[in-house]
């Protein structure tokens, strides 16, 4: 089995605020990330696919296909966007990097069928990073 990892970058803003907490609790839990105006990050995304090497191409999967999938389904959606405004994902869910990482895993796993999507790693800053794998791969 070979694990191939591809890195991407997107820049987005968010605000950490839970509708289930009071104003005071939100401020206590999220601190400056609760600023109502939002703030932004350069997110680094790494998508890992796993598989055997195709003997005809020497590849696990064609990178240009992975790139175009991620570009159309992740980067076009999140780059230079405000994550809280994403009507489908973050109306009731706080766009913490944990939740963003898991949402990206779900989108890529659900739509990219050329290889097994094994892991999504998301760096919010150079100091914070998150990774999500399915239970069986941990």
């Amino acid at each position, binding site marked *: 089995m*070979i694990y*191939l*990892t591809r*890195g991407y970058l997107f820049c987005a803003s968010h605000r950490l605020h839970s509708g289930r907490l009071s104003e005071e609790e939100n401020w206590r839990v999220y601190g400056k990330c609760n600023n109502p105006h939002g703030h932004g990050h350069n997110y680094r995304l790494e998508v890992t696919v796993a598989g055997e090497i195709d003997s005809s191409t020497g590849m696990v999967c064609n990178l*240009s296909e992975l790139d175009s999938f991620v570009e159309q389904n992740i980067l076009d959606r999140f780059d230079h966007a405000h994550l809280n405004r994403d009507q489908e994902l973050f109306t009731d869910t706080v766009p913490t990097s944990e939740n963003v990482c898991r949402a990206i895993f779900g989108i890529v796993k659900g739509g990219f069928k050329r290889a097994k999507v094994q892991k999504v790693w998301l760096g919010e800053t150079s100091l914070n990073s998150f990774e999500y794998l399915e239970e069986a791969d941990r």
Partner: protein
Amino acid sequence: MYLTRKIEFSASHYYHNPALSPEENRRIFGKCNNPNGHGHNYTLEVTVQGEPDPVTGMVLDLKELKAVLEREVMQVFDHKFINREVPGFQAKIPTTENLAVAIWGLLQPKIPQGRLHRVRLYETPDLFVDYYGEGK
């Protein structure tokens, strides 16, 4: 305990499968199909697993590992046109995947102490592959 050593080498390659038509080669491999080749600065991370020796406190002697990496990888790949100059890649496409497996094969029998755990090969900062040996 896992110990990782990093090296860098620069080499050129191109992707072409003679069993496919020129059109198919261009469709599958895109600009990587240019027969004149193109190059990368590869970064290789070699991870060895073992217990620290009670006398030396080390998983393995880094000097010996460095010598193995120099002999088995640097002298084979650095500043070479992989398709033409590296044994095995006249008939095999030098994708990052195939290079990682080949490097595993070169290093695995030569690790002086401990056990080779992982080979991670970066073609660029945005593309790398991990190989843990056959069946893993």
